[in-house]
């Protein structure tokens, strides 16, 4: 069963990341998550929204980023939606954590955090264009 949806809609200015972070943290906390889990959600959502602002909107601050949270069973679900350029997450390689820091490529960390900190991350290409990423975290689940 899906609970009430809570939503925040902001412009694609990077300065709005802090507002989104506060909103999502509060919703996660109210869902009964531990502070550790709340931080994981905040981190993953920050990265997803950064991707929308920097990559989908190419830094244009006039776009719209919508973040929606709800509960589905024991899962806390966050959706991040934009109407920017379609972003192919599969084209971004994971950082190679086995190599010394000096030799490592710096990219791919944002997506990596999303996948590691949330229980599932699904990318959807909506009919109307843009991107939708749906992230789930089991309340009290792994990494709690």
């Amino acid at each position, binding site marked *: 069963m899906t609970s009430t949806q809570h939503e925040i809609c902001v412009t694609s*200015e*990077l*300065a709005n*990341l*802090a507002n989104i*972070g506060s909103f999502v943290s509060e919703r996660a906390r109210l869902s009964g998550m531990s502070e*550790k889990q709340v*931080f994981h959600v*905040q*981190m993953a959502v*920050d*990265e997803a929204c*950064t991707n929308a*602002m*920097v990559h989908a909107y190419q830094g244009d601050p006039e776009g719209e980023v919508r973040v929606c949270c709800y509960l589905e069973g024991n899962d806390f679900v966050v959706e991040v939606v934009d109407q920017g350029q379609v972003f192919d997450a599969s084209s971004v390689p994971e*950082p190679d*954590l*086995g190599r*010394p*820091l*000096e030799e*490592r490529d*710096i990219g791919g*960390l*944002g997506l*990596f*955090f999303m996948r*590691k*900190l949330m229980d599932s991350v699904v990318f959807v290409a909506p009919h109307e264009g843009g991107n939708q990423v749906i992230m789930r975290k089991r309340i009290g689940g792994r990494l709690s």
Partner: protein
Amino acid sequence: MQITTNHLKRCDLITLSGRFDSSNAHELQAALRASMDEGVYRIVLDMKDVTFFGSAAIRALVQAYKECRRWNRGDVRLAAIPERITEVLDLAGILPLVQVYDDAVLGVGSF
């Protein structure tokens, strides 16, 4: 968000506080850059009051780390990392590779 650089004898001590995300990671990058431009490649980052450290900030840290360690001329060391941030840096595979100290005094003294 606040960044304060103290030029000490052994190194530069850069004290960070607040939230570091993609909106302001460039300021962290600039502070690190400023030290390196002055020829200071031994840097301690005091992270005691950091509340959030996203991938953009981590990238700035790693970039500076790489540059400071080039030709063995210096290093970037971390001090007083909050627990939540420690977990993130560990996940990013950075923690095992960077020298970490419980507080800034120990960090500075390590140089």
